[in-house]
């Protein structure tokens, strides 16, 4: 079954096709990495797929229905979106932040239901943030914030998860923690699309890699094929070494610019 499908999707911003004729399918159980140089259109593609900006042409189908037929609330129950930067504007405590993930489910005129509270507790447990639950979110370290942000999207219990650079600005350990969490979500049946700048991470953790260049999708394949030497040179302008990383496929390690 297909969760989300983009057909001939284009997004024109200020007269420029930032996303140009993109075809993409997201399947349950698959972690897809979206990679590409700065300005390739990755964030714009993701925001369009999440229904946050309108497509200029083409269409997006969510579970056999056009995305624009969904009410914002219905859409929000199916698609969780984690923007860049893990920004929190108010020092809410962590439990309140994670409970925001229940926004599309919760009754606006009642306190959280048992189901809502169970989802929040589960999300806190899955991200090992229970002990932070009472802390103001603005007092946390970058790694802790990243886990809390993930707990928030987990609490929605959506089938589709979009994450825009979830590993940016994290220490190596937290990069691994976040990627493992994303892979875990996919293994439990979620369709996960993550923008990742770190090619070794993308190659190690994802089932599929989608490569974007100047608004177009130029590759959509398993990591080894999508990130072969010719493509790394043509798209990223780099030469990479291949490194064995724990018995998995060799991982490209950027060596030098072409």
């Amino acid at each position, binding site marked *: 079954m297909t969760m989300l499908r983009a057909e001939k999707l284009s997004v024109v911003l200020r007269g420029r096709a930032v996303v140009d004729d993109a075809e993409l399918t997201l399947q349950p159980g698959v972690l897809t990495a979206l990679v590409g140089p700065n300005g390739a259109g990755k964030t714009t593609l993701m*925001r369009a797929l999440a229904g946050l900006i309108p497509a200029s042409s083409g269409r997006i189908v969510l579970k056999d229905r056009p995305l624009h037929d969904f009410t914002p609330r219905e859409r929000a129950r199916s698609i969780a979106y984690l*923007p860049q930067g893990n920004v*929190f*504007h*108010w020092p*809410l405590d962590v439990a309140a932040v994670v409970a925001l993930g229940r926004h599309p489910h919760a009754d*606006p005129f009642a*306190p959280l239901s048992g189901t809502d509270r169970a989802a929040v507790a589960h999300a806190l447990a899955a991200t090992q943030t229970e002990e932070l639950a009472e802390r103001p979110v603005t007092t946390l370290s970058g790694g802790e914030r990243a886990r809390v942000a993930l707990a928030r999207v987990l609490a929605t219990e959506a089938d589709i998860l979009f994450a825009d650079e979830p590993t940016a600005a994290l220490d190596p350990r937290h990069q691994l923690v976040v990627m493992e969490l994303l892979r875990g979500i996919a293994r439990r049946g979620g369709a996960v699309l993550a923008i990742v700048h770190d090619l070794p991470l993308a190659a190690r953790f994802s089932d599929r890699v989608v490569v974007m260049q100047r608004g177009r999708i130029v590759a959509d394949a398993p990591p080894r094929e999508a990130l072969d030497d010719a493509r790394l040179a043509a798209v990223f302008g780099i030469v990479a070494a291949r490194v064995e990383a724990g018995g998995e496929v060799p991982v490209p390690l950027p060596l030098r610019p072409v």
Partner: protein
Amino acid sequence: MDRLPDLRLNLALAALLAVLALASLTVGPAPLSPRAILAALAGSDDVAGLIVREIRLPRTLLALAIGAALGLSGAALQGLVRNPLAEPALFGAPQAAAAAASFVIAFGFFPATSFAVPLAAIGGALVSIGGLVAIAGRRASLTVTLLAGLALASFAGAATALALNLAPNPFAAIEVAFWLLGSLQDRSAEHVTLAVPFLAAGCALMAANARAFRALTLGEDAAASLGVNIDAVRLRVVIGVALGVGAAVAVAGAIGFVGLVAPHLVRRAVGSDPARVLLPGALAGATLLLAADIAVRLVPGPVEIKLGVVTALIGVPFFLVMIFAERRALEGAPS
């Protein structure tokens, strides 16, 4: 998520308000006992009844309603732009409302108690807040918003000066100048009926965004992805603040900084939650304005100090202290 401390906070503020309201009915040139006041409220037929019902009660009710609307306006704007330093007066709203109302009053198109005055004031506030939100755009930093607010406030000030400049007679000019200072002196039941419907409608519109404000903690994109209609929230806040500030200005003149101070005083008690701060923010606004209005009546002197002067004298230093406290966050903020 605990609701019990919120209930306690709100009840405490309501109790404080009740005490202040009684005090407000007691303060005045004619010394009246609390018992006489209660009798007057019950409808006694003597001079005391007249004084309390015709003079002190409207003043008290207006301080309560306007204070609550201004406190809520601040909390709502802060929720929308996600910054504790947002305040209608910094965005030029009361200034624009005052400018529009000045023209109506100075040129005597309508008597000062006609609905034309609040409608003009609401229109002025709507243009300024709507213009501000449009200029500042979706992802504006507080810096851009404040600069746009400064420009709008300056323009509104110039427009008010023009109204004074062109006033057909000195009495009209003096009337406008006094009213601009902001005061609840000599307000009647007519002013209450003039302002309260607009204030109530504005408060309802602003309060309807509680959950959206909480979701906006994560930023506009994340809030939209959670199902929040950001454009609708923005429209409700703009119209709500315009109704609240415009109606307040129409009957009491320009009273600033209640929206900055009131939410700040209660924010920590509600865990900085932009949704839970709305009700106590409104109650604190009512408390502050009522206390200030009692204070101006207690200060001895030949003329009463104007309420708007007092709130600015307290509010601006408060604002400076807040800037000082927030300056690291402000310097680090993306522009």
